[in-house]
């Protein structure tokens, strides 16, 4: 009987502990993770992000602590975070170690572009934000969406595609072991740059020689390259079957390169590329 008297106190204690542990000031280092935080509707807890957090647009208005690969320790500290969500590519490693030594909670999540890592990212963010239930339902939803998409036959099975993007005006191509490559494969395409590893500069002659049937690029790349007309007029690009048949798709950067919670949407958009000449290049729904 005596023990019952303690129960309310115990409950109160647990509630206090739970509320104390739920992080309220979160800094994210890595755009893919920011997107996951938004997908839980937990953006009100974000106090800062890195420069790669470009989706959704609201994220770009949060204070920036630099690019996640070379973020500023002091910048993060000045936002007084109680949780730092970092991609395993965030760094320099010493900076993360410094944050930890100063008693900050740093949760590092895998950045690899495969489904296991994506689920780990979602679970990890959910766990750190104490939204485990949302994490589970998000992953379940993702799995069922992907299963559905697998049944959907792509427009042309194993059609060849080239992912072309650009950071500073020179075209680069996505080879093996990239998020773009994984997304492409999940959508049922064959990457014409499968023999190359990573993102590398691409020669215009090389593009012509690869003869991709589909051309995929990102909205930021298009800006860097000077717009759709400039891209289509690039010598080499103009000679590809993709451009001749109008099979050009533009996706938003994190949709194609982020391997985030919108993966099913990316796959859907890739699979719905027209297979016949339609004259006009397809503009993806970049939200």
């Amino acid at each position, binding site marked *: 009987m005596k023990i019952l008297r303690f129960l309310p106190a115990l409950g109160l204690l647990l509630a206090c502990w739970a509320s104390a542990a739920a992080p309220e000031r979160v800094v994210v280092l890595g755009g893919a993770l920011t997107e996951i935080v938004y997908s839980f509707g937990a953006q009100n807890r974000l106090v800062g992000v890195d420069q790669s957090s470009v989706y959704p647009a609201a994220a770009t208005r949060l204070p920036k602590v630099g690019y996640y690969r070379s973020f500023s320790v002091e910048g993060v500290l*000045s936002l007084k975070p109680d949780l730092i969500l970092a991609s395993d590519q965030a760094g*320099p490693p010493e900076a993360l170690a410094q944050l930890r030594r*100063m008693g900050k909670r740093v949760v590092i999540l895998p950045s690899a572009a495969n489904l296991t890592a994506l689920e780990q990212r979602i679970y990890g963010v959910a766990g750190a934000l104490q939204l485990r239930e949302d994490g589970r339902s998000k992953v379940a939803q993702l799995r069922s969406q992907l299963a559905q998409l697998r049944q959907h036959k792509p427009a042309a099975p194993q059609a060849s595609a080239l992912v072309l993007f650009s950071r500073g005006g020179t075209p680069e191509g996505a080879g093996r072991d990239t998020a773009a490559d994984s997304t492409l494969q999940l959508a049922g395409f064959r990457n014409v740059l499968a023999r190359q590893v990573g993102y590398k500069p691409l020669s215009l002659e090389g593009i012509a020689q690869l003869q991709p049937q589909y051309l995929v690029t990102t909205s930021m790349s298009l800006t860097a390259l000077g717009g759709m007309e400039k891209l289509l007029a690039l010598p080499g690009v103009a000679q590809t079957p993709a451009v001749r048949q109008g099979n050009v798709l533009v996706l938003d950067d994190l949709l194609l390169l982020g391997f985030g919670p919108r993966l099913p949407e990316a796959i859907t958009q890739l699979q719905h590329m027209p297979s016949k000449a339609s004259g006009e290049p397809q503009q993806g729904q970049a939200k």
Partner: protein
Amino acid sequence: MSAAVLTKPHSERHTRSPAGVTLLLAFCLLLLLMLSLVKGAVSIPLQALPNMVWGDIPAEQVELTMWQSLLIEVRLPRALFAALAGGVLALTGVLAQALFRNPLAEPALVGMVSGGALGAVSIIVLGGGSFLLLAPAAFIGSLITTVCAYHLGRRYPGVAGLLLAGVAINAICFSLIGLFTYWADETQLRTLTFWNMGSLAGARWSLLAWLTPWLLAGSLLALRYWRGLNALLLGEREALHLGFPIKALRRQLIVLMALLVGPLVAATGGIGFIGLVVPHLLRMILGADHRHLLPAAMLGGACALVAADWLARIVVMPAELPIGIVTSLIGGPFFLYLLIKGRPA
């Protein structure tokens, strides 16, 4: 200050007391170190400092503990590292200018920095990447480029030979670094990018523990060369007649510079212009006597880099700029000014 100094006739330039200037620089360095410790993305009130150093911190003062660990973990190693790196860069600038007998010789311009970077990068991409291997590789790279620059630079009178040699050496080194970046994977790339612009963000106590004894010993050794450097000012033949073993002196200086610049570059990447701007300013104020110039350059370089690092940290808060951008932004115009003015000092 500089405008007044520049317009003074030659004879008056040397009248400043070297001890006074050195003391002033030391005082400036202390002030700048204080400033960079206290001000940043997180501001620490000055009155909290004594409590942090001597006083006990009450358990409820969470903020105070945060400030304390920020000071000890982040700012102090970084400020000390900036002072050390700046001092060594300016010192090697003075050495290079005396050895090459050329006012424009500077570790970055003549290729010592890019050579060191190439050495470090090749180790990172080809294998390992531990600092134990990095520093010797950077030293070897730096040594090779310094020797090349020296011999090529001597073939032409005046500034042209050395600068052209520097241009070619830098181009070769940076293109080889570019080639390595093509082989590098994503993680290595991240480590490589900072060589382009330099960074002090890697400053930590363990790195300081490695570098400080090394760099301080090298710098103290360099300070002892002031007589030889003064003799070189007169000309190699004159120095020889005065009894200085020129060949040995030259060899020792080249190795010494590479020993200083190489390992530093391995830790900071390329930070340009400190080795050019600081020695020139001080030569205008103090004259060319290396006995005073060498220690003053160390202090001045330390001041310059601590200040530049502080600017890099506060200009785009809460993010930060690569420090090479700040030093080039200030050093670049000064370099142009030197070129326009001809051969000062």
